[in-house]
């Protein structure tokens, strides 16, 4: 699978420090389980319908239900969440949440202390790419995981470039492993 771990956008070469590849969804599930204070950042692309799957936002909600991980909805994503009767922990711009995650003194949305793992999905590829880069370089105590269907080398961990069905299957597995449904 590492052969496929090339940046999705061809030119977005990252540098020597590249994301480890999540070769199996079980690995991601285990990481999420191990996280003490995880957070999930969801961008507006999650509200778009992929050609042969439902909206990614459903996975977010199920993930939240299974784990209680607080969800930050960026841009207007929250509108879709609310429509679906789900209240994310916060609406915030992607830059704002990135900037806070970078700050080791930020005590989180609930004031209870810094997060240790940030999961990302649904941001435009290049935008997620640079925000993850900012966190990689400057948020030294944070691990980041990209749950998008694309390999994002600036994360700590990322899926490789996946086919839609591989990707949705991964979510199903992760959610199951985390005790959700």
């Amino acid at each position: 699978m590492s052969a496929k771990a090339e940046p999705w956008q061809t030119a977005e070469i990252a540098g020597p420090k590249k994301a480890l590849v999540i070769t199996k969804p079980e690995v991601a599930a285990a990481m999420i389980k191990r996280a003490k204070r995880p957070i999930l950042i969801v961008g507006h692309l999650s509200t778009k319908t992929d050609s042969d799957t439902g909206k990614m936002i459903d996975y977010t909600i199920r993930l939240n239900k299974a784990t209680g991980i607080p969800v930050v909805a960026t841009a207007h994503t929250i509108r879709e969440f609310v429509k679906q009767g789900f209240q994310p922990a916060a609406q915030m711009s992607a830059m704002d949440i990135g900037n806070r995650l970078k700050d080791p003194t930020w005590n989180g949305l609930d004031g209870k202390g810094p997060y240790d793992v940030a999961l990302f999905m649904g941001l435009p590829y290049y935008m997620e790419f640079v925000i993850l880069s900012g966190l990689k370089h400057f948020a030294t105590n944070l691990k980041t995981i990209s749950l998008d269907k694309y390999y994002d080398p600036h994360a700590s961990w990322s899926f490789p470039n996946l086919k839609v069905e591989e990707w949705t299957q991964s979510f199903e597995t992760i959610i199951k492993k985390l005790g959700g449904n």
Partner: protein
Amino acid sequence: MAKKGLVVKVKELKTNIAVVKGLEVSIGKIVDDTWEEPEGPTPFPSMTDLRDWDFKLLQRYKPFYLPFCDVCCLCTFGKCDLSGDKRGACGLNMAAQSSRIVLLACCIGAATHTAHARHLIHHLIEKHGRNFPLDQGGLNIDIEAPVTRLVCGIRPKTLKDLEDAVEWAEEQVTHCLSATHTGQEGSNLDFESKAFHVGMADQVGMEIADLAQISVYNFPKADPEAPLVELGFGAADVKKPTILVIGHNVPSSVGIIDYLTKKKLLGKVEVVGICCTAIDLTRYSTAAKIVGPISWQLKYIRSGLADLIVVDEQCIRADALEEAQKVKTPVIASSPKNCLGLENSTDKPANELISKLVEGKVPGVLIFDPEKVGEVAVESVMAVAPKRNKFSIIPEIDEIIAAGKACSGCNECIRACPNNQPIPEAMKAAAEGNLKPFAEIFDNCVGCARCDSACPKDFPLHSFMIKAGEDKSLSEKFMMRSGRGAIQDIEIRNVGGPIVLGEIPGIVALVGCANYPDGNEAVAEIAEEFAKRRYIVVLSGCAAMSAAMVKDEEGKTIYEKYPGGFEAGGVLNVGSCVANPHIAGAAIKVASIFAKRNIRANYEEIADYIHNRVGAVGLAWGAMSQKAASIAAGFWRLGVPVIVGPHGSKYRRMLLGRKDKKEDWYVYDARTGDKVYTGPTPEHLFTTAETKEEAIVMIAKLCMRPNDTTKGRSMKLTHYIDLHKRYYGVMPDDVHLYVRNKMDIPITMKPEVLKILEEKNWKETRIPDPTLLKRMIRKRG
């Protein structure tokens, strides 16, 4: 160029003129004794003169770095891995490197406008003399060149006066660029301050370029009713010989119009333009038509409609010559900055060049003389057009179907596409004769042709899109208001108060390039949202064009629906990129005309004024270039927040406030000297909006200022809350930060807002006479 230099010069003249040998004297710098306004502290400021101000802003709006790459490769000590806490061979770390790249981009941007100004002024002086008077708006404008007054402390009256400012700007570019050298600046914050500085110089460079061309070419002069001009593929009658001009520096295009006029050929030859030259040409002559912004270059060239192309400088595809050759369109290059490897034929007889071009002996010629460009372009195009017969390389449908069938689905195209357009899927559909997906891609495409390049089967994918979008695009024709130039003093007089008090809820400036994530429409939609709400909507450059490219049911564009005045609900196109300083200038003039502040060489005070009082926000939705970076930097230093679209996240760093840190949002009350909490107004100095919806809500929020009256604030809050609910479906969770006392609360929203205030333990604060500058305190507490 230090002020001391000026003084010494004058002294020396008086004492030494008679004894100096081998020297002659010339008319030198202006020492404007007739200007009753006293000179402020920073005429022709040095790179560090405004550093304290920058550090104030940077203290509140801290950089969030977004490295684009882990390494630095700027010198041969490198590459150096700067990931984590590593340092390069020169000792640099990633924070400093990231801001260094920002500075570098801003230097390139500022150099571009300044060099543009220099070439333009040089040309105009050569043609019209150094004493040609500057005129930006006749009697309607007393404060012409507000940026130059503010920054340099001079009042330029004639073309030659602009040389002082351009020289100063060149010096600043050189100093700031020098700081990017390996082993110079070591502090990220100082890199930032230098980026601000060169951005400020950029504003001067742009202002004097536009001032010069408005004056000499008699562009609309601060005219709210600048003419409506045609824009779009369908604007020109392409059955006629058609000249396409691309770029930013208008003299050679003016040469074309002048020659057509002289030869009475206007109307026989179409002149269409892309990018700012297009805007500026319509400011010169409404006979010219606009194709569209930068993203339309390949679409138009490949369509074969242009029988001759004239490129000047900036925003020109590097492969314009190669693409033009494919459709047998000859090219005339006309700028020293973009010579395209062509032989310099400036001194060759026009006839020789015309016959070379017409016979296709050369793909293009290089001519620096704008008048000769005019002659050669016009004479050539008339002979070339019948021969070319609109030869195009847009493929036929069967060719696309065949390609669709041969496509391997390798994904190289989509992986090359900056907007992740589903080309492989479109190819699948095309294989079955369905071009609709390609037509959809056409709408979201920025015309970069990276997909073409990437395809291992060498399919001209961008041409497929053009074909698929052809029916719609060929007939497209929109009305745009030509660039009006500056804002009149009287307009400022009318709106200055309402702006500063917050009663006009904001000035929204939509500027910059067309690197949009999803089509032109967003800009038009955003503009209209705010025009409807009676903000002042100001546009320039590619954004001004994009905003024209949406019609309502009646077929009207926003320029036809909203007035062109600087007034509540106005939609103004100030002009090309170099017209941007009219926007900053309007804010400066508010300080001068409404608040009677001195602006002469008084940068810090005025920036402080604008930052705390003028609810202006810039949105560069498709910001792409280094110029856009330096334009933004010019606004940052003035304290005006700038939002970029998602691609703008690649600029390497944002300047973000933290509304959750109360301590960051105190100002001095100039009346008492007290420190007063004002809430996060404005929350950010530079940030990215992921979607147009987010941009809209952000703009509304970033228009709030500490100085807003309760009436003004309640109006601003109304819009913010209303837009938040509309686009996000929920109440904002931060309204309590913007309510100073209950009178700020929009009446219709009172119950829900009060509920939030209660939840959040809100406490009333007072409205100060806000300033970040201790020295502005009138009476010490």
